[in-house]
């Protein structure tokens, strides 16, 4: 058994859904690193305890009331859509039976003019000298997420051997 194996078991034991085996308990008693991990896991669970006081009954009634209101709104929207469709069908029927051509179909078809080699001048960039242009490019390359948390690799494309070697290097 490694420290990593013990760490994997810690959330289960902390949640009271399991207990230490004799081997695990002996390892925990001897390994300072694992005791630190264990203290951290327990502390993290304590941190969430304030969230256990949510008023479930109140949440139930509010969620159900909001869902009922949303369903009513959906029905009204659907009803409006059906009414609109029925009105459009009625107009189409009248046009067909009265043989009245639609007003927008009477004129000759027109084609929007097109311009070949159309280009949009970007005046602000064209007037910059080399140094200013470089500064703009560097700005573009700078990360956007100022103040956010750093990105981490997903590891999802690594095989078990590669993942094991990462974990090994962490323990080593």
């Amino acid at each position, binding site marked *: 058994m490694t420290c990593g194996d013990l760490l994997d078991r810690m959330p289960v034991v902390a949640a009271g859904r399991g207990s230490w085996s004799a081997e695990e308990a002996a390892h925990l008693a001897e390994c300072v690193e694992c005791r630190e991990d264990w203290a951290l896991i327990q502390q993290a669970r304590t941190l969430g305890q*304030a969230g256990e006081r949510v008023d479930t009954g109140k949440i139930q009634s509010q969620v159900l009331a909001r869902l009922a209101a949303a369903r009513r709104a959906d029905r009204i929207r659907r009803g409006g859509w059906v009414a609109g469709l029925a009105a459009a069908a009625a107009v189409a029927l009248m046009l067909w039976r009265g043989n009245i051509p639609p007003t927008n179909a009477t004129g000759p078809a027109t084609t929007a003019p097109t311009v070949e080699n159309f280009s949009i001048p970007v005046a602000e960039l064209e007037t910059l000298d080399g140094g200013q242009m470089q500064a703009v490019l560097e700005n573009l390359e700078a990360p956007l997420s100022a103040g956010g948390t750093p990105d981490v690799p997903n590891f999802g494309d690594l095989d078990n051997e590669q993942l094991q070697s990462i974990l090994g290097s962490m323990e080593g």
Partner: protein
Amino acid sequence: MSPSDAALVEAYRAGDQSAATLLVARHATPLGRFLVSSGVGPDEAEDLVQEALFRAFRRIDTWRAEASFRSWLFTIAGNLVKDEYRKRRGRMMVSIEDRDLADHNDPAATLDAKDAEERLAAGLTRLPRLQREVFLLRVNGGVEYEEIAATLGTTPGAARVHFHHAVKRLKELVR
């Protein structure tokens, strides 16, 4: 024997409103715990629990049962926290002093515990999002790596590495 989440979701989809009541009763408290651990104040947690559950039921058809209903809910709640965090431009969502801390008779121990909790809460907000979510799902939700992987779109092995990295990083941040 109480019905499974999948059975309750199926019943709700078929129009049984009481299934929603049971699902809320089952998952509201773990959701509250998850949110508070994510840096949400206990007072705000209740509103966000309600919002997460409301959103979940509104798009219940998108739940595919590949991941558990609870970890799916945690993902929705995690997105809500992220949105709130963005709205406040990265500021902590709660004053640490607002939290309920362990009640110790020894004032020095109380201060130590409070200090350690503050550092842990701050450390959690500094973890990369993926590491934080894996850590919280595992520690607060008791979710297995396979399920975390299905929820967050990664592999079980990668989820395990993220969990180990998160613990290592938090230990450094808390020291």
